[in-house]
């Protein structure tokens, strides 16, 4: 069984993020990191390998992004992936969700995985959607926000919290599964694994190598357009009470709630 883990390089959580006024895209300069949600996808792959029920031949970390994204792949390999694949091409810049999903699906097709795992969201954008977009381009079944995976007999039994409680869903392989962060506690990479990560095979691909139609990606291939960027509406500052006499404070709170018919 071959598992591909989609990973993404995102601006570090501590970095103050901004939008570039000219390109209307996220300014991705500054410190970057592997999307923390994707570490749960890698951990899920490792647990399937170590679980002993399914025979995992290979775990491949896969990303699309600029040159710096190589660092996210190194981290993914340090966490357990055997090798990695990097799709990088100026033609991809400015791709929207559908264009990104299409490009990733083409890249994944070249690997023929039995299972694609990814984090349910990225810190910087395409929340909850990219897994399902990739899956439909690949014509594979998919499930998102999964918090438990069991593998047996060429299929998965997945659990997740949906609108009405917990759903248990059986999914045939090959499939695309995005995982929530409640699924596992990602391990810390060993120093040896971190040191060895750069020596593991890393293959660079351009759009032409995996049959991506350049007209379908990048800004030109995108179907959405950012028309404007506005500040959020100002919220009026609320009333602040410093608690000096608690009885008096409580009286004020009760009066405030009562006035708004909340009691």
């Amino acid at each position, binding site marked *: 069984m071959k598992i591909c883990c989609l990973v993404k390089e995102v601006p570090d959580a501590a970095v103050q*993020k901004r*939008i570039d006024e000219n390109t209307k895209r*996220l300014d991705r300069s500054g410190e970057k990191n592997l999307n923390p949600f994707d570490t749960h996808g890698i951990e899920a792959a490792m647990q399937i390998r170590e679980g002993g029920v399914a025979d995992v031949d290979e775990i491949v970390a896969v990303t699309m992004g600029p040159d710096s994204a190589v660092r996210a792949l190194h981290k993914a390999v340090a966490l357990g992936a055997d090798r990695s694949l990097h799709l990088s091409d100026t033609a991809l810049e400015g791709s929207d*969700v*559908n264009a990104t*999903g*299409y490009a990733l699906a083409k890249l994944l097709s070249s690997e023929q995985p039995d299972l694609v795992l990814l984090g349910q969201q990225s810190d910087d*954008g395409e*929340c*909850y959607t*990219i*897994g*399902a*977009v990739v*899956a*439909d381009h690949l*014509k*594979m*079944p*998919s*499930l*998102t*926000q999964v918090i438990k995976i069991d593998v047996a007999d060429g299929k998965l039994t997945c659990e997740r919290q*949906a*609108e*009405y*409680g*917990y*759903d*248990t869903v*059986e999914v*045939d392989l090959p*499939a695309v599964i995005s995982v929530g*962060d*409640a699924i596992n506690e990602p391990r810390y990479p060993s120093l040896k694994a971190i040191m060895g990560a750069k020596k593991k095979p890393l293959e660079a691909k351009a759009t032409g190598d995996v049959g991506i139609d350049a007209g379908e990606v990048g800004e030109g291939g995108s*179907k*959405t*357009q*950012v*028309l*404007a*960027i*506005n*500040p*959020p509406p100002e*919220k009026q*500052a*609320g*009333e602040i*009470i410093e*608690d000096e006499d*608690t009885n008096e*404070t*409580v009286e004020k*709170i*009760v009066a*405030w*709630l009562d006035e708004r018919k*909340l*009691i």
Partner: protein
Amino acid sequence: MSGILVYALHDDEGNFNKNSLGAISEAAKLASEIGGDAGVVVVGDVSDDAAAGLGAYGAAKVYRAKSAPEGLAQPIVDVMAKVIADEGYSYALFGGGLLGFEIGAGLTARLNAGVTMEVTAVKAQDGKLVAERPVLQDSAIVDVGYVSEPGIIIGRLNAFDTNETGGTAEVVDVDVELSEWSTRARMVTRGEQRGADVNIEDAEILVGGGRGLGAKEGFELAENLAEAMGGAVAATRAVVDAGWYPYAAQIGQTGKTVAPKLYLAAGISGAIQHKVGMQNSENIVAINKDQNAPIFEFCDLGIVGDLNKIMPKLTEAIQAKKGG
């Protein structure tokens, strides 16, 4: 026709989801502005009356695919893609929630369409729809337009309000052949309840507890206050991770999104990851001993003080008021 197609989710008893009904009302309003109708897709076992009843929220036409199963996204993608192709809808609109995200995303790939998610508002401009999406932890709002039709819009939870105008919808049964890959995921059990978790998304009053409660035992303060007020208890990710409270009560980026009438935050600093899950509450009251806590920047009433002193007395005062 510049119509807008909506998917309406229902539970096993046939009750429609609040976010879906809100999306129907929003679609009806927007469609009238761009010169079209709101259509609705339902799947599975939905009675004639229930389907026609969606007209009360603004649906002109309801497409019912009886043979497609409810609860999994890809069969519904098949149905919506066919209805859009046959009937020429210009947009698909989804209320917030897990399934809306999945169906919207699948439809995006299927139709090679543009998608905007986490949308908080939609406006009509020159006969087209523009979606407003907060980005960068809500520090900016981008207006997103669509280069081609159809455009897919996925709302944030509770983004669209229901509006009952009365009326009935025309119900049309549609026969859709499911894609091969859509049949390769099967629901085993749906909507299983685990533990004594209350549905915090439907509660009108929520008491949210954070690190400031000090320990697992501190949640008793939140529970007592919630009980006195007739509300439920919610929690931040930090305390769920610490094992103080069950995951089902977690609010925020990786938990649930709520918009109750009153959200009383006890010992919650108001980090953005939590804020996104509760900022649409009608009234936010915060109790925190740190006067620099970010929550004081967006609450309606803030109390700087020791919650161990304030909460028991507040609970008593509310009990007394209700009793008297």
